[in-house]
């Protein structure tokens, strides 16, 4: 009887542990894909005939992997996003850790912003950043305002920062001219 109980306990614990395996899963050689996200992403709620465009598919693997988000955090520094967005606080560019999304808070909106660039300063990174890294950056940018689950968002900073790590940031519900596609 005790043996059975022990077996049950062990299997329960291992099953619980298995669920944590995906969190750090890393894909070292992502296949190059030519996605059409850029041309389909919707940046405004206004549509002729009030019919919203279909939402383009987003690879959610990047938003579910702590590894991808932490890579996004590293790239955010290495590609000098901080030069204008100052670790999310904003400076030359708008802040990324508040609830105001000028061009939309959906992953595909942010993808478009990075790839296409935006008026008044945001450069286009088309061809300069591989697509999978853009998605990693997108996931990290969303974690800045608490839009990602806490177990995925980075829970520590590599360097000394004034602000707490992303996992400790309160969630900011997107408002303003969000360009959210209606659901």
């Amino acid at each position, binding site marked *: 009887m005790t043996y059975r109980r022990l077996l049950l306990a062990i299997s329960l614990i291992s099953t619980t542990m298995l669920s944590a395996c995906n969190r750090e899963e890393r894909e*070292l050689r992502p296949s190059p894909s030519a996605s059409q996200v850029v041309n389909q992403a919707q940046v405004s709620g206004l549509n002729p005939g009030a019919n919203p465009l279909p939402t383009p598919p987003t690879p959610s693997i990047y938003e579910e992997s702590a590894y991808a988000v932490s890579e996004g955090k590293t790239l955010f520094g290495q590609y*000098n996003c901080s030069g204008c967005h100052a670790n999310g606080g904003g400076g030359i560019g708008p802040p990324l850790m508040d609830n105001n999304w000028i061009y939309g808070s959906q992953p595909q909106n942010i993808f478009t912003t990075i790839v296409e660039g935006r008026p008044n300063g945001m450069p286009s990174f088309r061809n300069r950043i591989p697509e999978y890294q853009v998605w990693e950056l997108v996931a990290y940018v969303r974690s800045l305002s608490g839009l990602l689950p806490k177990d995925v968002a980075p829970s520590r900073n590599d360097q000394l920062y004034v602000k707490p790590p992303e996992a400790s940031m309160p969630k900011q519900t997107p408002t303003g001219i969000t360009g959210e596609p209606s659901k």
Partner: protein
Amino acid sequence: MIAASSPMHAAAVLASFFQGEHNSLHPAGPFSSNIEWLYWVIFWIVFVAFVLTILAFARASAKTYSRAEEMLPIMKDEEGDRKTKWAVGTAITVTVLTLFAVLFMSVITGKKVEGMSSSNPVTIQITGHQWWWEVIYPNPQADQTVITANEIHIPVGKPVVILTSSADVIHSFWAPSVHGKRDLIPGYSSAFWIQVDQPGTYPGRCAEFCGLQHAHMGFSIIAEDEATFEAWEQQQLKPAPDPTDAEAQHGREVFLTHTCVMCHTIRGTDAGSRVGPDLTHLASRNMIAAETLPNTTGALAGWIVDPQRIKPGNKMTPNPLAPDDLNALVTYLRTLQ
């Protein structure tokens, strides 16, 4: 099969231990000579202790022992007791004295390989990155600063100061023929001296586990005479030459309009990012990818297209370039002498 090959394998490993290039028993400078001397002193002390121990075991096992069924009476043997006391006391004294002697020699050797003085030494800043070495020859004048990667040129017979730090995790700088291991710790600078007395190329490795590609994080110290070293330094100071033929010019366009430019510097162009190795004089190096591949056209092309196949997990992204673009890019990179 395994049983048959194991002793041969062990013999091969043992042979490489004494013959290989990556070997602290082939010292190339004063520091490694000191370390080698200490190594042999300790080796012979331990060897003598080992032989004595084995002899004592052999003697004890060769002695006859009683098979008596009944317990033998305990006999007093005062002479024997005194002998035993002397033997044990001498053994303990000799052991303690030897250990202190070894400790003393270690401290002396440590001091010897620590200090050196020179009024105007060559100074080299080495920064460990996952998984390559950034090598900077700092100079108060910014345009006199040489930046390269993985291949450390030094003048022969002159003391050189190595300043160390790390960009990400703890690495360890180890060229066994030149010096002992030195840890590179993020956020912490340290310095030590090296000197090489014979011209040649001395391989080194990262000696502290630092992630997926720790095993492919090599460097080499290239010791050459003063004139050659200065010529090399002058060449490294020049910005990259403008490509002359059409293909190399197209290659530069490819470099500047694709992902390369986000991480690499080529001085003399707009590429100025410091995330990856400086490529201004890439073609002057013997190896690429931290001593993983020879610096040939084919290896370079293979590395650019799919670095994750060669060093899985490294920080360079795959670059699916069109064949013409790739050829042009490699042609351009090969012109960066």
